[in-house]
């Protein structure tokens, strides 16, 4: 029973965080909020990249080399073909190979 309540608390809190901005600014979006909406995506994507790599250690082996090589492969593939599925497939395969051989 406690578990049900805790799960409900997590669900409701998460929903509140997602809905709150819409409920507050829903009808007339202030210029400042529109501006944030325009520039935040790029900044947050950058944040998420760093977030995914937060556990990578550059001072102990393998020094983040698999992540670095695989990550650069993704970026280069994206610049070359502009196809996200292709870039992600290539990067993931390279990463899976690298962590087995390094």
């Amino acid at each position: 029973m406690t578990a049900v309540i805790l799960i409900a608390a997590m669900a409701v809190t998460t929903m509140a965080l997602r809905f709150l901005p819409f409920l507050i600014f829903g009808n007339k979006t202030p210029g400042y909020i529109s501006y944030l909406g325009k520039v935040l995506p790029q900044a947050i994507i950058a944040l998420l990249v760093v977030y995914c790599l937060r556990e990578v250690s550059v001072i102990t082996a393998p020094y983040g080399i698999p992540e670095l090589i695989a990550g650069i492969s993704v970026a280069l593939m994206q610049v070359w073909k502009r196809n996200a599925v292709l870039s992600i497939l290539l990067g993931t395969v390279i990463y899976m190979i690298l962590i087995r051989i390094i």
Partner: protein
Amino acid sequence: MISKAFYRSLPVMAGYIVLGIGFGILLRNAGFGVLWAFAMSVFIYAGSMQYVGIGLLTGGASVITTIITTIMVNARHLFYSISMIDKYKNSGRYKPYLIFALTDETYSLLCDDKGPSADTIDRYRFYVSLFNHCYWITGSVIGSLLGAVLPFSTRGIEFSMTALFIASFTEQWITSKDHIPALTGLISTVFCLIVFGADRFLIPSMLLITLILTIIRKREESPK
């Protein structure tokens, strides 16, 4: 249109199924079976929070602790929502679900996506969101059923999530003229990671990013 949405959601599929399996296995090991995994993935639908939630469930956390932890882990969703207010403004009956299902990955797919056409954009966004939700639920159910029998050979496939964000970052970099927001995000986050450490840099990063972007806007608007 549905097939376009499906194709768009493909990069998330592998990541969500693998991460979902990991979650299902951990939750089963903590003593909660497949129905729990299913319910959490349907109703909470926030990956990292569900991982943290396992610890709360087994550690006998109070409701208050659970709510505060959820706010800390999921505060970034405020920012996702803020940046989607204008885009979801006229989404009609799809709007509640689109907001509910706005995860990191769905956000990264939809924040810059104009869709196949202007009149089908909301259905397109709805299906992308729904497919992702289904992958996540499917993964956690499979994980719960598999128990500890995860095939070893999938080690490293979680990089697909990182790769997704790097591909989005690169794409945005190519298509936008102003790189200040991207650089602000990158530098602020790395700075906060070094200063605050891997467990608690997320919120400071978001505050710092918002602060810097706000200052930049003020400067641009002020008369020269």
